Each structure stands twice: as C-alpha cells, then as structure tokens.
C-alpha cells in the first residue's frame, strides 16, 4: 500500500527516473573502462565511484569546490529553461562575470579590503545579468531566438574579455590576468572542516542561491509569472502579465547566476586566472548537462552539480592508473545521454505504479 502511494508521488517519479538513468550510465561507463583497459577497469571504476572520497576530507572539499561553478551555471541554464528559454550563453555570461570580479578585485583599491570580495561578486552578478539581458531584449522585442543570440554572445564575450584583460588587468609575464589577492573569498570555516582543500565560502553561496532560486520559482508570484510566460507567452499576455519584461528578467537572472559562478571561481585562491586564449569557458557548457540531470529543479541541480563534481574528482584520482583522462569525460557524456531518456523511465515507473495499484485494489 505504502509502496504504491510512493510510486504515485510526482516528485518521486522524477527523482527515481534520474537515479535509474545514472545507474544505467554507470554500467555502460564500466563497459567502456573494460574496453579501454580491461585489467584495471574494476579498480578504475571503484575510484570513480569513490570520487572525491579517494582523497579523504581534502578530496571531499575539492569536490565541493569543483561542483560550485557548475551548480551556478546549471542553475543559470535550469532557471531559463523553467521559464521557457534555452540559455546556451552561460559560457559568455560566466566569463564576463569572472572579468568583472577580477577587475574590481584588482583595481578598486579604494574599497576596504573586508568588503572588496562582496563588491566584486556584485560586479560579476551585474556583468552576467547585462550580458544575459541582451539576448532577453532581442527575444522580447524582436523575437530573435535566444539560442542563436546567446551562442554568438559567447564568442563576443570571450574576445571582449580577452581584450579587456590585456588592457586593464594583464600580467604580461604569464599572459593571464593579475591575481585579485585583495578580493580572495573568505574560507568561512570550510578550511577547518576540509583541511588543505580549495573549498571556500563560494560553495555555501552556491547552495544558498540554489535554494533562493527554488523559492522564487515555486513559492512566489514573480516565479509564477515567469513560468506562465515560459509555458504560454500568448496566454500570459491575455492574463495581463507583462511578457516582455518577464522574458528580459528571466534572461537577466540566468545571466546573473552564470556571472556569479564566474566571479566565485576566479576569486578563489586556487590560482585560477583568465588566460588570454581563444577558448570558451567550459563551465558554461557543463551547466547544460547539470541542469538536465537536475531536471531544471534548483534543488535537483545542487545534487546534479555535486554528482558531476564527484565524478570529475574520480577522474582526477583515476589518473593514478593507466587511463586516458578523456575516459571520464566520455562516462559523464554517457550519463547525460541516458538522462535524455529519463522521460521514458518516468513513464515506466508510472506503469509499475498502476500495476501495483491494480493488485492492492
């Protein structure tokens, strides 16, 4: 009786579908390990499963730090998706946020050192939001597809940041940005919990922001408007919602989230710098699978981000064995492919639920 009740619960159906997908993905991943290096496949697989836990508390801390930026870019993609927009421009928004944070951290020396990191983070939020707003405005007023504009803005953003870095915060000897030492994020006690790891207040901020996004989407009238516009723009207009404003705000929030991710990562004291190369920030694109795996639910995205971070750490530790590092990327990719099937699993669970209910009746 209880099982059938559980199986009929809507959120249980979604969550269990994601979990089935992950398990299947892991199984296929194991097959790939077997093919690429049969003798060490099982050892390698165990390392991946242990992920961050391979390195004790330090590994766990690094795992949290690793998942922090992709939780935020995942939120960026997921939030836009919940409101009917496909934000593929998280990469550009991310790197603009990163630049704004570094610029403020390095150049705005007039701000007291205690507040500098906070101001720098606000800078990253504003920069990301403005970059997202461009796609939003074009979509709202000219009905230009946001996928196209945001892809283009990724490249524009990357080159613009390269240009800006060289002209404002350039470390000529290393061909990268200057370290924003004065604005490094505080550790907030995370270094005591996870000694010698890179984790800092950024992870806490990411989780708090995710919860905030959940509340906005599910509990407020503002979120109700954004979702209504996402599901049916015409009906929202009919209902008197300002649908242009909603679209622009959605994209601004999505951009702000990605920008904050960039700010948090580049203000960490881990030696991450903007390098002046022609490569898009991968964190932006990794947000897409994280959002998918988390079913665009902000709380789900926390766990999806942690999971991908965990796998990444597993891949890091797996380098002890004789595996090419790309294998881990292939495994994550497989899990993403499977997650596209999660709808099929959802209906499978529904059939199971019906059968069970039929028996108990």
């Amino acid at each position, binding site marked *: 009786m209880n099982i059938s009740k559980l199986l009929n619960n809507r959120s249980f159906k979604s969550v269990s579908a994601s979990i089935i997908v992950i398990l299947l993905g892991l199984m296929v991943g194991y097959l790939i390990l077997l093919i690429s290096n049969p003798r060490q496949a099982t050892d390698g697989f165990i390392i991946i499963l242990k992920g961050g836990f391979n390195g004790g508390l330090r590994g766990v801390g690094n795992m949290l730090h690793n998942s922090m930026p992709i939780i935020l870019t995942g939120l960026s993609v997921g939030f836009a998706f919940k409101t009917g927009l496909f934000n593929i421009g998280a990469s550009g928004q991310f790197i603009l946020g990163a630049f704004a944070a570094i610029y403020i951290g390095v150049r705005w020396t007039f701000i007291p050192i205690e507040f500098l990191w906070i101001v720098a983070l606000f800078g990253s939020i504003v920069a990301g939001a403005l970059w997202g707003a461009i796609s939003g405005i074009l979509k709202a007023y000219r009905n230009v597809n946001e996928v196209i504009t945001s892809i283009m803005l990724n490249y524009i953003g990357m080159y613009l940041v390269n240009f800006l870095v060289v002209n404002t915060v350039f470390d000529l000897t290393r061909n990268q940005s200057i370290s924003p030492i004065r604005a490094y994020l505080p550790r907030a006690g995370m270094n005591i919990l996870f000694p010698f790891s890179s984790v800092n207040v950024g992870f806490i901020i990411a989780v708090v922001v995710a919860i905030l996004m959940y509340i906005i989407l599910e509990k407020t009238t503002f979120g109700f408007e954004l979702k209504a516009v996402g*599901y049916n723009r015409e009906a929202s207009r009919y209902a008197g919602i300002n649908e242009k404003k909603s679209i622009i705000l959605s994209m601004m929030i999505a951009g702000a989230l990605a920008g904050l991710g960039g700010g948090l990562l580049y203000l960490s004291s881990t030696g991450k710098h903007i390098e002046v190369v022609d490569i898009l920030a991968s964190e932006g694109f990794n947000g897409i699978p994280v959002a998918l795996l988390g079913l665009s639910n902000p709380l789900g995205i926390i766990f999806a981000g942690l999971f991908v971070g965990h796998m990444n750490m597993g891949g890091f530790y797996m380098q002890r064995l004789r595996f090419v590092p790309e294998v881990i990327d292939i495994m994550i990719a497989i899990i993403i492919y499977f997650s596209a099937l999660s709808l099929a699993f959802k209906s499978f669970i529904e059939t199971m639920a019906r059968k069970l209910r039929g028996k108990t009746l």
Partner: protein
Amino acid sequence: MDYVIEMLNITKEFPGIIANDNITLQVKKGEIHALLGENGAGKSTLMSVLFGLYIPEKGTIKVRGKEVKIYNPNAANDLGIGMVHQHFKLVHNFSVLENIVLGVETVKNGFLKMDEAKKKIIALSKQYNLRVEPDAIIEDISVGMQQRVEILKMLYRENDILIFDEPTAVLTPQEIDELMKIMKRLVEEGKSIIFITHKLNEIKQVADRVSVLRKGKYIGTVDVASTSKEEMSEMMVGRKVVFEINKNEANIGDTILSVKNLSINSKVHGKSAVNNVSFDLRKGEILCVAGIEGNGQTELVYALTGLLPVDGGDIFYKEENITHKSIRFRNSTGISHIPEDRHKHGLVLDFTLAENLVLQTYFLNQYQKFGFIDFKSRLKNAELMINQYDIRSGEGPITYVRSMSGGNQQKAIVAREVEKDPDVIIAVQPTRGLDVGAIEYIHNQLINQRDMGRAVLLISLELSEVLGISDRIVVMYEGEIVGDVNPSEVTQQELGLYMSGSKRGVGYEHK
C-alpha cells in the same frame, strides 16, 4: 451474426481515470455505425484501442469473427482497419499523391514508381466520387479536400473498416453534405464505417445504428431510424436536454461599453481589419456580433481586451476612455474575456487547474502575501469553482489542464471569467467544438449573467446560437458593421444576406 468488428468488455485506464469501463461495440458489415458521446466520454480512447494506439487492460477484440490482438496501427492496417483522425495526419509540403502512398510506396530497384500509384488513385477517386488533385501540395488545398485525401489513403490501403473521428468539426455546411454523400457511397461499395460524433443531426442523416457512451461507460446501442434525437441526447447526457433556449425578457440598463469609430489596420493586407466601427453595449443584454469568420471580429475583440493596439477611434468603459489602457487594467476592472482559442489564450496547458483558475488574479492580496503565493487560498478557490461549475478532471485542482477534455477546459475558463464578478463579458465562440451538454451549460451561464445585469458581448459564427440567445445582433462584413437587427424579427436567410455583404441595414449604407 455477421459482425465485422466486435469489441467486447473493453477496459482502458489512465492515471486517475477509467476512460473505458467494460465497453462493448459490435459493428455489422456494411453499416454506418455512429459512436455517440460527450467530450471525455471515451469515444476516442475506444477507437484508439481498436486502431492499436492503446492496449486495453481487459477485453477482447474480434475482427470478422476472429479474435485478434492489435498492438500498433500497422497491425490494424493489416486487418483492413483505417482511420481518419480529427486532426489530419498529412505531410504539409508533400503532394496529395505522395501523402497517399506514404509508407506503401511502389518501388522498382529502389526507385519510386509513382505512375501506377497515380493511376490507381485516379481510379479510386472516380469510383467513390472523391474529388482530389493528385499533384497539389497539401498546404494549398482546402480542409475538405485534405479530408478526402485521408479517405483515399484508407481506400488505397484497401481498408474496408473505416473509422471517422469527428470528421465534420472542421468542415463548412456544404462540405458536410458532400462528406455525408461520400460516406453513403462507401457503404454501398461494401465498406463498414464507424462514425464518431456528438452531432445528432448528422447521425439522423447517415447512420444505421448508434452506440452511446457516457463517462466511460457503455449505455446501449439503438437503431437510428426508430429513435428520436431527444432520446439519443438523453442517452448521451443522462438527462433530458432542452433544445429550445428559455430566457426571460431582457431588462436593459445603461450603456456600459461604448465603441466609437474604431479602426484597426490589418496585419495581412493593406485594408482595415476593423473599419470605423461604433456600437454601444448596455447592461443586461446579450449583444451578438455575427459574421462569417475573418471579417474583423477577432481584431475587434483584441482591441476591446487590449491584445491589439488601436489605430483610430475610442473605447469607453463606464464613461472612462480605456483605448490605451493595459490588458491588466481591463481584466481587473470588470471586463472578462472568454477567448476564441482556449489553448492559445485561455489556458496555460502545462499549469494545473488550480493555477489556471487564478491566472489573472494570482497577484491579489487574497492569493499572495508579500509576493509569496498563498497555496491554501489558491487551493480553496479551485475546489470551490470545481464544485460550483462542475469542472471534471482526473486529479482535481492538481490536474494538468492539458489532460482535461475540451469541454471541461472551457468550463474552467468560463468559471474563472464569470467568478471575477465582471460587468462586461466578451465571449468569443464560447461553444466551439463542444457537445450538447456543455453548450447548454454555457448558454445558460451567459443568460444567467445577463439576468444578473451584466453585459454580454457574444461573437459567434453559429446562426442557431446567434438567433437563440442574443437580444440584439450587429453583423460585421469586411471590417464594417453592416446591420443592426432584432433576433425575433430576422430570419436565418435574411441574416445570411447581411453576413455575405449582399444587404445593408438602414443607417449602414455605403458612404
């Protein structure tokens, strides 16, 4: 017993709803067998079972006396069962010929051999008198011809059991007559037809026997010739239905909405969609804007509700000029709008029923505190409306509106618009695509609203509706009002003359 199709004790469940509960359908060879029921009665589900789209939980299907299992539409096709769906399944940028042969192409050495197919199609279209142009592209031909293409598709596959799912819903009166002739012709040639509908006139016109479903249950099968329309509708709805609309004398009050010299430029052509239109809507009356589709009614309503900007003229509501006021101003100060397209404008299909019922009021203090949604009052509101307006759904307030039947979706919109306590209700084709019971319900709601002193502006294409419930009629033709008539004094024929632009009323002459 000479049955071509026997569906015995079929049961099919969906989450929260039993769509078919122990239903039996027996179709004789060479008959037109009508399947009658309200929206959501389970007609389409039953046919989807027969066509292999759904697998039933219980029951057996016999085709020509042999028990069969139908797991997919191909299996149904192999058994000679074909279906014309309510929404046609045609490839829009393919030709008629290509659509008909799609999936059963004649091939030689891997190359298409269209010539033979074309000959066969021309022969078939002559035999059954189905006029089509084999080389025309689907998107260029009329809806009626598209339907004939669907029928030819079945004939080309040599199906002899033909299912028609609400085939007349999309057709003009002339096309309906032609379809009826085609159906009779098909039966003469030895085909058997299952005809899904909720229109009693059509059943009377062509069907031999009729099986009735109600709320997923089988009610019975009767001979059409010996059963009256009233008896059939009673079987379908479960109670007596009054075809005549009873209403009291209108108690007309002051003007509440006044349109003065309104003009809107067309998006499609260079002329005006609405050209210098003026009228007054008064409290306690149902004013009907009649006209053939596409003569500016849609644009007029969009202008009144704020969905479309006005290019000239003014709209006064309670003596205030609202020509340039926002949509929200209008729908929160007493102008309700039952939109023409309930899927495009009326509902957010992926929201729940409870969410849709507060679509325009979610921001009121009643439903939120400091921007946080008050879920309890939202739920209470939904339960209240569901009870009061008898909105049926699988899971109550948390049902996704997408999964509800058309009639209940419309009831939800009417409930929401009426419950706002409006002064003006603009109802655009509020009964389009609905069954007898739902139409009666909506007409009664509109008349009740009128009797409560509210003003109703009804836009309708159905002449019987126009003449049945309105207190005053204005006719629109090519964006202009060409006449202002009294429904008790005008005949259908005369109204038709106004609607086709061949007659103009006094004071509406050409300038």
